[in-house]
């Protein structure tokens, strides 16, 4: 939750530089509500990528959320339809982490969905407020002169990758993705990004098996 504060602010700050309007920025936080996908979309927008590729990338980046629904399926399927819609809309990484812990607690409390709703509303409000703060800050920075703001995205992304680098397979995956991204850089419509992502994932999984065997 606290962890999302800088992300929200940075997202708001960067989106202005990428040429996304204020309404677009807030709209994205209101309707998409998916941190990493929003960041990546803004990065792609900034480099003039066409929308179908952005949507495709969103699909790949958010595909992991399918696992969250799968994990909570047992519990969610007993709830009324409206609850299902609302709760799954807000099923972000953070909400999942909190809610899964609560659902899996072994007691018969019938109010666990309220707990998830509460944590979700909290996250949602937090995320949108921070986007707004970042948006205002970004406008002010640009007036000062936009120094290094084009590098801010790179710095932010590096800062976001580093916590993942904990084991050898992840290093392998990231390394493979970086190299392939360079090789396929010339491909039209940023398709190279998709290629690099698939190659990176494959490298990670293969490396994992390779090291397990030894």
């Amino acid at each position, binding site marked *: 939750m606290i962890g999302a504060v800088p992300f929200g602010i940075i997202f708001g700050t960067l989106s202005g530089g990428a040429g996304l309007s204020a309404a677009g920025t807030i709209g994205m936080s209101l309707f998409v509500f998916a941190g990493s996908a929003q960041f990546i979309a803004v990065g792609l927008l900034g480099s003039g990528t066409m929308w179908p590729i952005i949507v495709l990338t969103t699909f790949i980046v958010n595909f992991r*959320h399918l696992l969250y629904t799968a994990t909570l399926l047992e519990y969610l399927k007993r709830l009324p339809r409206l609850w299902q819609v609302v709760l799954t809309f807000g099923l972000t990484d953070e909400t999942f982490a909190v809610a899964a812990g609560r659902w899996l607690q072994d007691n018969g409390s019938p109010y666990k969905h309220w707990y998830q709703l509460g944590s979700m509303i909290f996250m949602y409000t937090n995320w949108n407020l921070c986007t707004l703060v970042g948006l205002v800050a970004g406008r002010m920075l640009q007036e000062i002169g936009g120094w290094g703001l084009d590098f801010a995205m790179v710095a932010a992304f590096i800062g976001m990758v580093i916590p993942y680098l904990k084991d050898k397979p992840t290093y392998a995956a990231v390394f493979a993705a970086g190299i392939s991204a360079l090789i396929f850089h010339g491909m039209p419509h940023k398709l190279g990004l998709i290629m690099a992502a698939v190659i990176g994932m494959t490298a990670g999984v293969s490396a994992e098996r390779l090291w397990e065997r030894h």
Partner: protein
Amino acid sequence: MALVTFSIRYGLLPLSGRINISGRMRNALRYVPPVVLTAIIVPAVLYPNGQTFLHVSFNNAYLVGAIATVVIGKLSKNLLITIVCGMACFGLWQWILKMM
């Protein structure tokens, strides 16, 4: 984007239990966020400002800034510090290049 994100999160409910995600797939998906971010960073740093040639030299402030940011990130383990110090290094290097 909103539609795609929501359908992924909600989509499984109506199909309740008919899809089974294998442990393998689950495992592979862990790599998605770092991999996609890296695939965006690397070309942005080595082909700065839409250049068409690979720019590997100390004259490339993006490259120098990115390397500095990685080091800072590894040491500080704090996102905000990483971004601010990374940007400062980039700005400083750009300034040095301009002076030379």
